[in-house]
């Protein structure tokens, strides 16, 4: 650990938390329909699509609209991936994907997961990246923020039936938030060295002789929304470790802030929407504390070089450099990977499979907490709201008061729905990992032996179920079991979580808003922030501790005992 490393982490913290506040206020204005600088375009979209933006939707209608849009998207993307050899922009003449890989990939991008069981350079054409994957990066991100907006509206008024209009939310978020930021950030990326070209791979002739392939493509536009929409699907296999996706420390800072900022902005937007900024700041602070602890933990772990390698004669000074890029070093590498797992981005600028055991535990644990620090765009917000409801419920049990959150009574129905959504995630992570490590096909997918192999599978199932998309990337992910199994986990992780959340929102929206009384447990205090963090760690984290102990923690002790596999 170095002073400059800590200074870098402080810089990312300041930029992210600072930018989140104005951005949050801006998102609140978008959700209220007050941002109008592209009003003619917006009206045109509504006219073409037959949308009445003012039609109120109950939670059931909102859910149906969201599911229908997602199903259509999955089907179209599946077709694009299967048929990419017949579609334009395929200079490398890449063939169609197999049915199971196309299923896995289509689901992965429609659920904002961006799990990549394919090798991008060899298995997907520029065209399929552009009009397949990249479109999903916008739409799945906008859909997540739309649901967050619907949940916010449940707390704004007394006894309302409507959560807003899904299509209007989707359109406005795309037009006024995702697209402008992506264009500006994308141009900065091109200026910094990220290619944007439809040409085939270039061949250069090194001065030492021979030939070298240089894999260019339309990367910059996709790179921006990949981070800003917390998608994470790399244009190339090495993701943001590749000098073309992330050429300099400045692009690294931009990408790191882009992938975090909306997650922190949404609680601010929430505070603004309900007219109680402090309530938003409580969620924002809880997110920041958890993420900060994760970054510090991973940075500390990776700053120590591997003791076996040091004994063999390697300089211990820089820390663990296996799988990391020289231009980033330890602090920028760990900050990026922890940020991308605290959100549902799953981009990487260094390879977690080669992290020290405890350095690799941090990203796993960040995902297992439920992706709330600060979580994916939209999904982080609605997940932490569910945690907030559980926290007032727990507080209510402890002091014998009727739990209320922001004037809305939290009753058995909401708590049952909340627990249901968490249990589904737990089921897929633990049962999926469990079956994988006892099955022949699962075992053959591991890249490393010993406890690290278990870590790889815990990581894979956690990443898919929590819609993160990063991996301990050595595994062979394109097998029938993992393609279909993880694909199913991604579907349930997104929709089986999201539907109960919308049901909770619908149920709360319909309730009258009670005035705060002396019996109300205040939810805008430091005490509540602490309680919320406690509930997140106990509920989100502890259920996975036994599994994590057998993976990364066991590996840690074995490494320091000098054991290799």
């Amino acid at each position, binding site marked *: 650990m170095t002073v400059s490393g800590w200074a870098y982490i402080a*810089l990312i913290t300041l930029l992210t938390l600072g930018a989140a506040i104005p951005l949050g206020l801006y998102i609140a204005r978008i959700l209220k329909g007050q941002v109008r600088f592209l009003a003619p375009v917006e009206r045109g979209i509504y006219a*073409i699509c037959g*949308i009445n933006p003012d039609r109120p939707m109950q939670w059931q209608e909102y859910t*149906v609209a969201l599911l*229908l849009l997602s199903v259509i998207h999955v089907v*179209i993307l599946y077709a694009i991936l299967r048929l990419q050899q017949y579609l334009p922009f395929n200079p490398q003449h890449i063939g169609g994907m197999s049915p199971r890989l196309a299923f896995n990939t289509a689901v992965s991008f429609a659920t904002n997961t961006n799990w990549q069981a394919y090798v991008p*350079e060899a298995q997907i054409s520029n065209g399929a990246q*552009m009009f397949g994957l*990249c479109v999903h990066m916008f*739409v799945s991100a906008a859909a997540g923020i739309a649901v967050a907006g619907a949940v916010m509206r449940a707390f704004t008024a007394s006894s309302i039936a409507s959560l807003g209009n899904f*299509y209007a939310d989707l359109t406005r978020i*795309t037009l006024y938030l995702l*697209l402008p930021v992506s*264009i500006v950030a994308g*141009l900065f990326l*091109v*200026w910094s060295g990220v290619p*944007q*070209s*439809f040409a085939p791979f*270039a*061949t*250069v*002739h090194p001065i030492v002789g021979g030939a070298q*392939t*240089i894999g260019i493509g*339309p990367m910059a*536009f996709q790179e921006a929304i990949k981070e800003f929409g917390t998608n994470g699907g790399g244009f*190339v296999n*090495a993701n943001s470790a*590749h*000098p073309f996706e992330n050429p*300099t*420390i400045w692009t690294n800072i931009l990408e790191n802030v882009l992938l975090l900022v909306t997650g922190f902005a949404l609680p601010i937007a929430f505070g603004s929407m309900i007219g109680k900024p402090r309530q938003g700041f409580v969620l924002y602070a809880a997110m920041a504390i958890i993420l900060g602890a994760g970054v510090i933990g991973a940075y500390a772990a990776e700053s120590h070089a591997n003791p*076996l390698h040091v004994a*063999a004669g*390697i*300089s*211990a000074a820089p820390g*663990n450099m*296996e*799988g*990391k*890029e020289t*231009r980033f070093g330890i602090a920028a*590498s760990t900050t990026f990977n922890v940020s991308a797992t605290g959100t549902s981005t799953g981009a*990487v*600028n*260094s*390879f977690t*499979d080669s*992290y020290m055991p405890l350095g690799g535990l941090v990203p796993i644990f960040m995902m297992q907490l439920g992706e709330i620090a600060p979580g994916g765009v939209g999904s982080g917000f609605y997940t932490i709201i569910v945690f907030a409801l559980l926290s007032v419920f727990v507080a209510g049990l402890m002091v014998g008061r009727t739990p209320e959150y922001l004037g809305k009574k939290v009753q058995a129905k909401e708590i049952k729905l909340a627990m249901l959504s968490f249990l589904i995630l737990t089921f897929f992570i633990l049962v999926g990992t469990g079956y994988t490590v006892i099955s022949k096909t699962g075992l053959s997918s591991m890249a*490393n032996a*010993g*406890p690290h192999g278990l870590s790889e599978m815990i990581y894979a199932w956690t990443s898919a179920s929590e819609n993160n998309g990063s991996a301990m*990337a*050595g595994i062979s992910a394109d097998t029938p079991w993992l393609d279909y199994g993880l694909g199913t986990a991604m579907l349930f992780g997104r929709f089986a979580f999201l539907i109960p959340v919308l049901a909770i929102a619908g149920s709360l929206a319909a309730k009258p808003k009670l005035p705060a009384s002396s019996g109300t447990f205040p939810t805008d205090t430091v005490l509540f922030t602490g309680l919320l963090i406690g509930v997140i760690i106990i509920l989100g984290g502890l259920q996975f501790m036994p599994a994590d102990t057998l993976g990364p923690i066991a*590996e840690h002790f074995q490494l320091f005992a000098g*054991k*290799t596999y």
Partner: protein
Amino acid sequence: MIREIRPALSLVVLFTIALGFIIPGIFTQVAQTVFPFQAGGSLIMQKGRPVASGIIGQNFTGPAWFNPRPSALMGTDAKGNAVATPYDDSESGASNLAPTSATLLAAIKSRIASWHKTYGAGSVPADAVTSSGSGVDPDISLANALAQAPVVANARHLPVEDVVALVNRIATQPALGFIGTTNVNVVQLNLALAEMK
């Protein structure tokens, strides 16, 4: 349900056309007009043909060149056997070997032995014997470059101080002392080295 089909379907089609074709198409045109060098992959030309991308590493070997970091990239040969394809950017990625991997430990031990043979005894710069995340890392640490400099100078019959001066000229320092690392772009360093008399 039925009445949601039209808006959902038409939004998907509209978004696919706008976000998948029109906007990235215009974006590409603008990028190639304003930043043609970067948009095309930062290709460095010599005598009318590209010799390297300025930001993608290249596999320089032997004592007469500054050597880049080990690259974990693997490809297949004509017979379908797995072979090492260091710095071939048609694919990218890391070794993904675990900290407890015996394979990784053996690889690092053999790289350390070969380093000691070429550059002498002592502690070995970490980046010189660990493989990078991308497999095409263009940079090495300044410590690594300075450790290689005397051997490179000797092999090319150049004064050591000139080669060290070149390394220091190409090296980049962290902005404001903490943004970035102290490193040297090996491709640019070797291209400049080839020009030295």
